[in-house]
């Protein structure tokens, strides 16, 4: 049973440029992403900046309206804003920047209470004391005291704030939490804290995570399955161990060889020279062709589909 499933999920953003906004351009942020997630599973989503990882998470949650494709959450097809409540009661999100993702004028308790107050499915039926009790419970789960609940976000450290962010996602009792680079803004010692908190919650409550990150080692550590994204599409997907031990796609191979967190505009090892194509361009061939060491003529002509190779799936003509 999958918690969610996407089929050819596509998201295009329209940008208008020029003095009179006369030039319309389309940013192909997601080009037909098909992924799914099982109960209690952690799916790692890796890729360079701008490859559409965050866009995927947000489109899946319905924060951005999708351009094309299908999204199924807990067996129900999501068609429009009417289904938002259904999606949000199953999927919640933890944001990247713990300093920006909490309202500075709301106490932690108010922030945590809000999902219970505004959404019919989570808690409008609960009495005021039951809501408060639930907030206390969540505070305890993420390792904060009741008294700390009366404080404002600026009184907390980055790691504590990220725990509040996790608590806020947790209070809707979701089955899946999308962690959008939850640790990249934190110190290494605090990163461990947050990851172990996530792991504990998973062990206790069977929550699934979509773990979006550009830190390959962290993704390897936390996830059971990995999807590697490049320019709005999945190039390789499979069980973590298989992907790390026998990477099939040249891009994955280069990433694993590099063995370091990805930063924007870095050259990825000696193999990967060349430019990342602009997501504004219409691409015919394989998006990776411009940097691929194993490029053949076919790569320029048609985009390779994601095909099954053993446990893994890969999008490459040469595999």
């Amino acid at each position, binding site marked *: 049973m999958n918690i969610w499933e996407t089929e050819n999920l596509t998201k295009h953003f329209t940008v208008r440029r020029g003095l009179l906004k006369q030039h319309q351009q389309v940013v192909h942020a997601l080009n037909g992403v098909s992924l799914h997630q099982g109960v209690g599973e952690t799916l790692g989503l890796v890729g360079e900046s701008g490859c559409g990882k965050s866009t995927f998470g947000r489109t899946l949650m319905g*924060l951005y309206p999708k351009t094309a494709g299908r999204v199924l959450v807990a067996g129900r097809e999501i068609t429009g804003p009417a289904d938002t409540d259904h999606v949000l009661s199953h999927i919640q999100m933890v*944001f990247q920047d713990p300093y*920006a993702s909490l*309202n*500075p*004028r709301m*106490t932690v308790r108010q922030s945590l209470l809000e999902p219970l107050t*505004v959404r019919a499915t989570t808690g409008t039926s609960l009495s005021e004391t039951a809501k408060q009790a639930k907030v206390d419970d969540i505070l305890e789960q993420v*390792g904060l005291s009741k008294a700390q609940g009366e404080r*404002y976000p600026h009184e907390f450290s980055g790691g504590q704030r990220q725990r509040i962010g996790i608590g806020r996602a947790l209070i809707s009792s979701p089955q899946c939490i999308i962690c959008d680079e939850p640790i990249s803004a934190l110190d290494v010692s605090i990163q461990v804290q947050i990851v172990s908190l996530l792991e504990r919650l998973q062990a206790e409550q069977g929550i699934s995570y979509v773990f979006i990150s550009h830190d390959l080692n962290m993704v390897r550590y936390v996830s059971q399955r990995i999807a590697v994204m490049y320019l709005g599409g999945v190039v390789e997907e499979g069980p973590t161990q298989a992907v790390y031990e026998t990477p099939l796609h040249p891009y994955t191979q280069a990433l694993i060889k590099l063995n370091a967190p990805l930063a924007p505009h870095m050259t990825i090892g000696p193999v990967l020279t060349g430019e990342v194509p602009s997501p504004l361009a219409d691409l015919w061939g394989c998006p990776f062709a411009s940097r691929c060491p194993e490029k053949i003529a076919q790569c320029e002509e048609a985009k390779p589909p994601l095909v099954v190779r053993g446990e893994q799936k890969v999008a490459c003509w040469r595999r």
Partner: protein
Amino acid sequence: MRAVDDFLPLAPTAVATETAYRPRPNAWQRLKENKLALVGLFIIICMLLLAIVGPWLSPYTYADQNLAQANQGPSSEHWFGTDTLGRDLYVRVVYGARISLAVGFVAAAINLVIGVIYGSVAGFFGGKVDRLMMGFVDILYGIPLLLYVILLMVVLSPGLTSIFIALGIAYWLTMARIVRSQIVTLKNEEYVLAARSMGVPAWRILFRHMLPNCVGPIIITMTLAIPEAIFTEAFLSFIGLGVNAPMASWGVLAAEGINSMRSYPFQLIAPALAIGITMLGFTFFGDGLRNALDPKGEVKR
């Protein structure tokens, strides 16, 4: 030993240490700690009280003339002296406070209600709605206030009502622009996206998440707008479009005082001081209010 302890993730001791907790001072308590804000509040309340009961404390009325006692300096009989027509200046100043303060508070109310709502709606919805609404504001901005007032005088007679209407047309524009630009910036904040991801409805995001974060600029604009409105009324009265003689606002009194500034400076000093002290009161209070409403404001330990 210590280095090892630091890296223990979520150790139970680290969780349980938070015991000493003092109840957080609320906005009013924080305001009370700010002496300058209290002084401002005191000034405003004094001015209001004076405006209400002040005229009764003197045997004269604002229109009583006594040419035999014209241009007298301050004395026990006439506390602030008399003007060129022998009218008691104290009564005229406290009576003028009624008009000037009314203008100030009406301007503040217009700013708060129309300006904030208009600006936040334009900023929040963005796109075509924003362009239309702000275009309308730009057009209104382009027409000088004086023109409205003169046109209004054609329809209505000069007086407080027309001043209020003129303020109603013109005085929310700056506020609308400032609130709009704030909301546009806040729309991209991650906590607004987070609120959406929790299913918070649009109106609640606007009023619970965005507007409270604009309180600073709103209060600053308002503390500037109140004195500005009082001065505008003074100017309109000065050119004869405001309140009618013998009624007096601070602006009228100051204008009359200027005529005899050399020979009888007290006639200018009394209304000018009243205007100045009131402005100071509003500024102090507004500043204190902004700090008190900001949870990041310094808390005295």
